[in-house]
């Protein structure tokens, strides 16, 4: 068993109200470390065995057509060690 991770984030130019809400909630709770916050999605895909290059290509495709919307989002595919 292995885990492939797909991370999907809004493009930098797209408004991120969720990230903004977190960024403004942090100082209210006394946390002052953040300059800004962006919020995105993380998919953990469990597959049977170590992924083959073909499988990874398939995941890339799925990330592009289903898991993200290229109009507003970008994605990264990683194999979790």
């Amino acid at each position: 068993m292995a885990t492939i991770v797909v991370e999907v984030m809004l493009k930098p130019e797209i408004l991120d109200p969720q990230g903004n809400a977190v960024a403004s909630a942090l100082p209210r709770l006394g946390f002052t470390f953040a300059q800004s916050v962006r919020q995105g999605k993380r998919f953990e895909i469990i597959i049977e065995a170590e992924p083959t290059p073909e499988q990874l290509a398939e995941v890339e495709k799925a990330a592009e057509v289903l898991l993200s919307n290229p109009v507003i989002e970008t994605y990264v595919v990683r194999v979790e060690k």
Partner: protein
Amino acid sequence: MRVGVITFPGTLDDRDAARAVNFGGGESVALWHADADLKNVDAVILPGGFSYGDYLRCGAISRFAPVMKLVIEAAEKGMPVLGICNGFQVLCESHLLPGALTRNSDLHFLCRDQEIEITNNTTAWTSSFAIGEKITIPLKNGEGSFQCDDQTLAALESEGRVIARYIGENPNGSRNLIAGISNARGNVVGLMPHPEHAIDPLTGPSAQGLGFFTSILNAMVK
């Protein structure tokens, strides 16, 4: 005049949309997401709701329903298609319309009576209105903020494809107060607020939403 109303798993406003079609003088025809033909309809409505729970992104999973292949083909040939709320989201995900609908800027689901201005009356779905006509119909969604890149926005504006705009304070962060847009040909329209809930003052804020459902009759007569 047969107007198909598609039900995806999780669609909610299908019966309301069908009722509105009938109120407007058309004949509503129920279509199911798994259908393999469009039952000879003259136009199609993708109603509001939470198809597939709105999981992943609103409309992202419905876009791949079997019936959508047919809708996309028919739309490209000029069949009038109206997407309301979740239906608008499906149309964007299907790339029949540009842009995307994202979380409301205040992060809350918002249900309220919203005044909008009709800014294009040449589409299949807005011909019953006058340009500049102001109507009040319900707005109800959690992800109704229309977003696109600057270039797309400029194109939509210069081609007059913004068909309705919010009046007053921006309810959800939509760019340029956009409430609805059309494709270049004017047969495909996406609208965030819900005209099907404004066909009778008894159950809605007004009857001013009816125009969308009478427009389509004009479109066919022509």
